[in-house]
């Protein structure tokens, strides 16, 4: 089974802090994604990566950056956390060669910024 793990299930940070969210997948997938999930808005794509050291902006990249130094790991960085970044953050991965290109999701990190 594909496994996507995220470093924390719950995180509480203060405004202005630098926040790192880590995601690891064990299926050698090329693509990795970061979403935030908010009630009534569904999942919104922040950034994605289709290869090591490659990244593409999604729909809401402002206030975030990402890093992909190894194929299995994709990090989301909040340079200076703000209260409007309080949300559930979901990581996903997918394979270019898997028919249908479905994404596999991690359990999510619920981030609260005070």
């Amino acid at each position: 089974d594909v496994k996507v793990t995220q470093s924390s299930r719950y995180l509480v940070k203060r405004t202005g802090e630098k926040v790192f969210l880590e995601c690891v997948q064990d299926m050698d997938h090329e693509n990795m994604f970061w979403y935030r999930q908010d009630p009534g808005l569904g999942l919104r794509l922040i950034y994605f990566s289709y290869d090591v050291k490659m990244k593409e902006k999604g729909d809401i990249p402002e206030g975030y950056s990402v890093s992909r130094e190894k194929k299995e790991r994709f990090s989301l960085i909040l340079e200076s956390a703000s209260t409007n970044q309080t949300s559930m953050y979901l990581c996903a991965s997918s394979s270019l060669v898997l028919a249908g290109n479905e994404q596999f999701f991690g359990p999510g990190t619920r981030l609260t910024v005070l």
Partner: protein
Amino acid sequence: AQSVSQHNHHVILSEAASLELGCNYSYGGTVNLFWYVQYPGQHLQLLLKYFSGDPLVKGIKGFEAEFIKSKFSFNLRKPSVQWSDTAEYFCAGGQLEEDNNDMRFGAGTRLTVKP
């Protein structure tokens, strides 16, 4: 812009009722379509997907969806819901192209099934 829309935000049904959740997409060309489910406290998991072939797709737990290209729709159906189907359902769409691997999700539909 590419988008996916879900018409219903919250649906409440009694057990054994039939379910249909609407989903429309705005992609042109070859499109992959998905329904994901998120049970309370659990992570998103795939219910079913369409990427080619038979437009009627069967998924897990008795769910099915029909791809109707002329209507840009991919509605999710189940003939008889159970209390355990209470969850949030997300429609998603993407295009399998070399330079476009992202996917767009709808806002989600919360389904409550009353016992």
